[in-house]
């Protein structure tokens, strides 16, 4: 039989206050082991009290209070494993490359879209020279018309280090947007990939027509392979999200989306430090004549090979190596 509400509160309140105090200490990280055991006991008691309140005092403040208290204690007790430094090491050593290999179909599709964009841009500008007015930014066109590389000026208006940080942050933004656009059924990612490809293709074609292809290659040789790879990988992550939205499989759409979103963001997080590093190369090495073209090209090829070697080999297990051909349909 239920006792009156005030008497019930008076009798049980000490436990609730104790639980609240323990939760506050747990948040600040000063909880000892024996206190943790008390927390567990008190949480179970509060759960029982909540069940009691649900039956006998529904809709009262006590009910709401216990609900909230149990919610906080539940969150404190059933915590997901904490990601700390060993987890970060493990992420880059094994998880990031393994995720990429597992989702290589999406990265491949992303690369195909990007190449399609490049081809499209190049073909349009080569066939119809005036197409460049549409596809190439006017600033770049202005420079090319004068027969100079626009990249030469990057160095003359700002010292190389600020260029490096500016480029790194800009590339990070492009990578983030390409990934996040996946939520628009993948259409935004598709647009970002093709659009960026068309720009690059159009600029390359314009430079080729004006006889400056050598200059362009000289500029992008060092950082191009890795940087474009990263954008392609982010595009793959965006396409994963889009695919989960369009075809969630056997899961409800919301669950499938959350599951795939977690996987996809690993690709983006994994790329972030490499994007920072390649930004340094783009800022220091690529512009100007500090390094001869063959050094830049060699560096670019070496970095690209290292990057992809890491992605394809790192943390690879025997099981993965054997079932690699088998699950390629997924």
């Amino acid at each position, binding site marked *: 039989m239920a006792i009156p509400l*005030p008497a019930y509160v008076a009798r049980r309140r000490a436990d609730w206050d104790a639980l609240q105090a323990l939760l506050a200490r747990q948040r600040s990280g000063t909880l000892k082991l024996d206190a943790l055991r008390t927390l567990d006991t008190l949480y179970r008691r509060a759960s029982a009290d909540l069940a009691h309140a649900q039956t006998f005092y529904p809709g009262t403040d006590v009910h709401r209070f216990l609900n909230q208290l149990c919610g906080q204690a539940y969150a404190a007790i059933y915590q997901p494993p904490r990601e700390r430094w060993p987890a970060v090491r493990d992420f880059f050593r094994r998880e990031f490359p393994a995720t990429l290999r597992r989702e290589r179909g999406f990265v491949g599709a992303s690369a195909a879209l990007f190449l399609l964009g490049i081809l499209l841009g190049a073909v349009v500008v080569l066939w119809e020279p005036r197409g460049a007015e549409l596809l190439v930014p006017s600033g770049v066109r202005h420079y090319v018309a004068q027969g100079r590389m626009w990249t030469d000026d990057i160095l003359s208006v700002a010292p190389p280090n600020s260029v490096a940080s500016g480029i790194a*942050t800009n590339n*990070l933004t492009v990578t*983030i947007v390409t990934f*996040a656009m996946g939520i628009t059924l993948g259409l935004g990612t598709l647009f970002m990939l093709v659009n960026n490809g068309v720009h690059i293709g159009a600029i390359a074609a314009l430079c080729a027509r004006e006889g400056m292809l050598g200059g362009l290659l000289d500029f992008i040789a060092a950082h191009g392979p890795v940087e474009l790879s990263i954008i392609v990988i982010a595009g793959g992550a965006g396409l994963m999200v889009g695919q989960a939205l369009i075809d969630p499989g056997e899961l409800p759409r919301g669950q499938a989306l959350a599951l795939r979103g*977690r996987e*996809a963001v690993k690709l983006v997080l994994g790329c972030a430090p490499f994007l920072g590093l390649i930004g340094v190369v783009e800022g220091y090495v690529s512009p100007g004549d500090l390094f001869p073209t063959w050094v830049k090209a060699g560096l670019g090829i070496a970095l690209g090979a290292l990057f992809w070697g890491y992605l394809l080999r790192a943390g690879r297990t025997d099981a993965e190596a054997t079932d690699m051909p088998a699950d390629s349909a997924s």
Partner: protein
Amino acid sequence: MHPAPTPHLDVATPERVALTLPVAGIGYRCLAWLVDASLLFFFWLVAYFVFTLLVSDVLGVLQGLSGVAQTLLVVGVFATQWLYWTVSEVLFHGQTVGKRALGIRVVRVDGSPVGVYESAVRNLCRAVDFLPMLYAAACVSMLLTRQHRRLGDVLAGTLLVREERIDLDKYAAAPAAATPIAQAHAQAAGARPLAPEDVELVLSFLARAPGLAPEVRQRLGARLVERVGPPDAEARAAVLASTESTEAFLRARVVQGER
């Protein structure tokens, strides 16, 4: 239980008790964002003014900085834009400064705290939620989804729950002063026990009574006595003689046990 007026997150715990957490709506979320955004804004404003106070030739100093310092500066600006959210949500159990000020918290859809990946997803998606301007896409998404989730929340499988400040002191205040006369009246009236809703109603009134205007206090007290009071008119008149006797009666009435 009466139907929930606001959207809720239902969590089934291993202890076989269903938790029902209130979900934070668009208003809370916009306010929390405003707090965070103005915090970041004022941080840079203050940083800038301190900097200009300390050095007179700002441009010269900036150009004279070493490469590492300049890179750090630009990356720092970038970091506040993207990392502030994720780092504080991971370190402070799903709360940024603004969310803490508003008493809301990011949790997964199963009620557990957010991890690095979930937080990263929902904050990277700000790039899309912000489109076309000022989080318009996020607002539309929050209005259309049942639990007020923006696109980033949908993708990350997270939502925001509200934490209220609930004061249990009003329950403690009741049994303190129950005079014998009031108790006798309550005994007379107490043929039937009070429903929890009535107890809640009476306790809320008693907690607020000292702050009410005298005539309002009397009128509300009379209506409550009518609801929970003694059935015969004579006893009721005695109870209603003064505000003190009314409230003493109500106080005695709520602590009265079921036989």
